[in-house]
């Protein structure tokens, strides 16, 4: 199985990344690295729906926040280990994705996009009005300082996110190489012709929304532990919605490599820039890059590189 080889390779890379970061031995690198990895998961998840099937999800922040608030909710009931919380967060977001898809995907593609855009506003309204999870005031999650075997808790969170990256990339690449990947591509290209070729388009679209939503929820589940104090405005932050679209668009949407490149480039850039310039300027740059790339380089950095290779050959 080539997917198995890929998975092993990815795990090897992840282990190297983890120990290299540990060798640097600076907490800030773990904090910044966590955010970049989180964006890798988010943009890969977005791309499974957006890049492969061509359906745009503007509500990444909502799916992410659902995962985060599932954790807050469970944390109040009974403290669970993070891997379990990830499963729950993924399930919640996946189900919401499925429901939204079921209601809107039988219609024109634009309706789904609009509905996801509105979803973020509505979920935020719900959370703000829900006192149990902190309402508009927010909720504190006390994070342990240390964890057995690994040491500092942030290193544990970093490792967890690294594992999610491995999962997300393996799923994305697995889809590309499978029957599902061909099916997704036909939906992106021409749904009528896809149906006529025997592709069950609605079912495939629902699979894509569910998978994509679930991965976003999984990325959000450890977030309360990372940030320590979760407010609706930080969980539903604009940067999630924008980055999870901008990163694949800038990296390239046709394969798993694009979102990875886009997330690492833009994510690191923002981590560096937040230290030097304000976060608003930061987001402005991302927005402008997004607009510029969709107009000038529709296939992103991957497309530019492919074009360059083709020309020099």
């Amino acid at each position, binding site marked *: 199985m080539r997917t198995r080889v890929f998975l092993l390779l990815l795990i090897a890379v992840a282990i190297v990344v983890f120990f290299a970061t540990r060798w640097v031995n600076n907490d800030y690198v773990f904090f910044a690295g966590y955010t970049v990895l989180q964006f890798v998961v988010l943009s890969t998840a977005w791309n499974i729906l957006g890049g492969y099937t061509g359906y745009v999800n503007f509500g990444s922040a909502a799916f992410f926040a659902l995962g985060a608030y599932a954790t807050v909710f469970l944390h109040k009931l009974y403290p669970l280990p993070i891997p379990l919380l990830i499963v729950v967060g993924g399930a919640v977001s996946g189900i919401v994705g499925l429901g939204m898809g079921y209601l809107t995907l039988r219609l024109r593609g634009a309706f789904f996009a609009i509905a996801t855009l509105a979803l973020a506003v509505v979920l935020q309204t719900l959370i703000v009005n829900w006192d149990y999870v902190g309402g508009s005031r927010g909720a504190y999650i006390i994070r342990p300082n240390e964890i057995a075997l690994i040491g500092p808790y942030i290193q544990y969170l970093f490792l967890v996110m690294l594992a999610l990256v491995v999962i997300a990339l393996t799923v994305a690449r697995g889809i590309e190489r499978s029957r599902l990947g*061909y*099916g997704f*591509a*036909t939906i992106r290209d021409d749904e009528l012709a*896809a149906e*006529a*070729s*025997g*592709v069950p388009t609605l079912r495939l679209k629902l699979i894509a929304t569910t998978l994509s939503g679930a991965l976003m929820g999984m990325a959000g589940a450890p977030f309360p532990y990372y940030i320590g104090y979760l407010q609706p405005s930080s969980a539903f932050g604009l940067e999630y919605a924008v980055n999870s679209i901008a990163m694949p668009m800038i990296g390239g949407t046709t394969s798993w490599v694009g979102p990875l490149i886009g997330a690492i480039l833009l994510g690191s850039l923002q981590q560096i820039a937040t230290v030097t310039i304000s976060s608003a300027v930061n987001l402005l740059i991302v927005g402008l890059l997004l607009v510029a790339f969709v107009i000038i380089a529709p296939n992103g950095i991957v497309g530019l590189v492919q074009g360059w290779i083709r020309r020099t050959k």
Partner: protein
Amino acid sequence: MAGALLEVTGLSKRFGGFVALDGIDLSVAAGERVGLIGPNGSGKSTLVNCICGTLVNETGSVRFDGETVDGLLTHERTRRGMARSFQLPRPFTTLTVADNLRVPLLYTVNARPGRALSPTELDARCAELLQLVALADKRTHLPRDLTQVEMRKLELARAMAAEPKLLIADESMAGLSQSEVDDIVSLLIRLNERGITIILIEHIMRAVMKFSQRLIVLVSGKKIADGLPDAVIRDPEVERAYLGQ
């Protein structure tokens, strides 16, 4: 008619106040080559869309291979053996020519009960189909690199890849030169000889006459003739419909 592969009874379709199809009855036997003609806007494409499940007809029923297919989605009908090509070719633009054929193999042939094709068998089947329509050397190209006639052939090959019992070819020759038309007609006849029932919708009369064993004429959503081609084109009502426009 007993033993008919496709049987359409009392099929009607409206768009708002406009009656596109009005009580169509027709039946196609297994192995037949049927031509379907009619002036522009007579409802030919609407009929194809209703038969294939792309549009939902208000009344009437479609039976295929002994079972009613009403209410089934297009992909379910395709899996049962009903394939079509589109009037304007609709290739999967981001997939290579070979992968365009791989899709129906994966989703139709492999979705049917029985043994699924192995990756090597899939490759072999793609190659065979490409050979059949003479596109083997364009295998790794994207559809946008194809010429008009090659695009039409890809469209037919993709429909063929689903291993259909019935192939509905919707104006697969419009805009082609005479030799290209002959090329496609002989391709369709070859496919028919392999046991596939074919309905050909076409404007080019020379092609229709050469191809069809039977001719059905639609005018303003009604079937006005159905019979042997030579007899049908001498039918005064058919002549009036064509000369009258």
